[in-house]
């Protein structure tokens, strides 16, 4: 299964590298969002400092929506999803491979956005180490849910409109935990360990749910 998942991940990342969809669309979109948040809250620096973790994760989540849509758009072009269905690969391996590829893209995005937050919102750089587990676990949760709903929405004609409606409510607890953990990491919140554990639980639950549910979803897509 690991070999098959790696195959799917490498395929998705190679396609992403060739198409440069993230570089051309998702990253600029995320950076523009950060700048707009900064403009909106700039008169009140104290509010901006406090809101920085939440704004960071909102920017990640909204950008993730674009990345998820892209991840499944590459499967629908030229009926390529049929290639995957007929390939003989296990659905769990396909799920884990696609989630891993999405996760890698999101981690790259988060690194760029973190740099943006440090520059625009004047956040303490020394928090970077504590942000690593937060980013890894939150990314795992977002990638798992995104892959589940991405495949699900692939079967629906109005997927661009429906994906956010399905994805955002489910991911809201992760957003909350990620924001609290990030606040604690930069010293404006408490209970860093507790929130990191909450993120770990969500990541495990969503990855397990996706591993089980992806087979039927893939068949219907």
């Amino acid at each position, binding site marked *: 299964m690991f070999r098959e998942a790696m195959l799917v991940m490498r395929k998705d990342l190679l396609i992403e590298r060739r198409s440069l969809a993230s570089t051309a669309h998702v990253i600029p979109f995320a950076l523009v969002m950060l700048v707009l948040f900064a403009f909106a809250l700039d008169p009140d620096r104290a509010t901006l400092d406090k809101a920085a973790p939440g704004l960071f994760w909102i920017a990640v989540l909204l950008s993730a929506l674009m990345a998820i849509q892209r991840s499944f758009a590459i499967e629908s072009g030229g009926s*390529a999803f049929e290639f995957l269905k007929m390939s003989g690969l296990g659905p769990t391996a396909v799920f884990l491979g696609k989630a891993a590829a999405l996760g890698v893209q999101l981690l790259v995005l988060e690194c760029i956005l973190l740099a943006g937050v440090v520059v625009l919102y004047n956040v303490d750089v020394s928090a970077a180490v504590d942000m690593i587990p937060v980013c890894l676990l939150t990314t795992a949760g977002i990638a798992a849910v995104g892959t589940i709903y991405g495949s699900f929405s692939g079967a629906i004609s109005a997927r661009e409109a429906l994906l956010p409606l399905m994805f955002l409510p489910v991911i809201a607890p992760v957003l909350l935990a990620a924001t609290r953990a990030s606040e604690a990491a930069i010293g404006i919140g408490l209970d860093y360990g507790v929130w990191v554990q909450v993120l770990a639980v969500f990541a495990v639950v969503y990855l397990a749910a996706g591993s089980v549910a992806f087979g039927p979803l893939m068949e219907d897509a």
Partner: protein
Amino acid sequence: MILAVNLRSAICVINDYPVLVDADLAVGEGELVAVGGSNGAGKTTLLRVIAGLTSLRSGSCEVFGLDVGANARILRRRFTYLGHTPSLYDELTLLENVQLAAQCLGKSVESAEPALARVGLHSRESRVPAKQASSGQRRRASLAVMLVRDSALWLLDEPLAGLDSEGKSLVVDLVEEARSQARTVILTTHEDLFSGIVDKEVEVRNGIVEQAVLRVS
């Protein structure tokens, strides 16, 4: 005779429209079956049902003695379905697509280049991204995918579509070769190029499958 495909009393409904009506089809291992019928008659649906890509409202479909719905993943490692539209990743080259198909089944990537050469796509053409390839080249690449998969059952939906006369001869050669290797081939076609070599002709009319045995294997 051992059956490769056994479709019994199959009813398939898509968007409230009955596409297959009480369809029966028995195909023995090593048989070559041509499915004809007018556009929209249900030929593609028949193949997709056998491939497990379209589910039945009632009836059953067994491939190599296993129910398709319950054993789709196992069975898909044993057959190749070539659809109307070649299933390729646009951003990958034709070579990479064929290599990926080989890797998915745990086969060596080395098998891709000979397969592409066999279908007339040599080194330079095979390194073209699928999105830049012509429809004929894409069709040839999907034939190469079929070759590297080395399956016991081929399901070919209009395999001659989009091919020039040389490409059509190639498909006929591949199908004849498959028959000599005791592979089972079920193909849909509007052309007569296979008429001399098929074991059985099947006509689909408004979802009803009518069969005529041409040759006793």
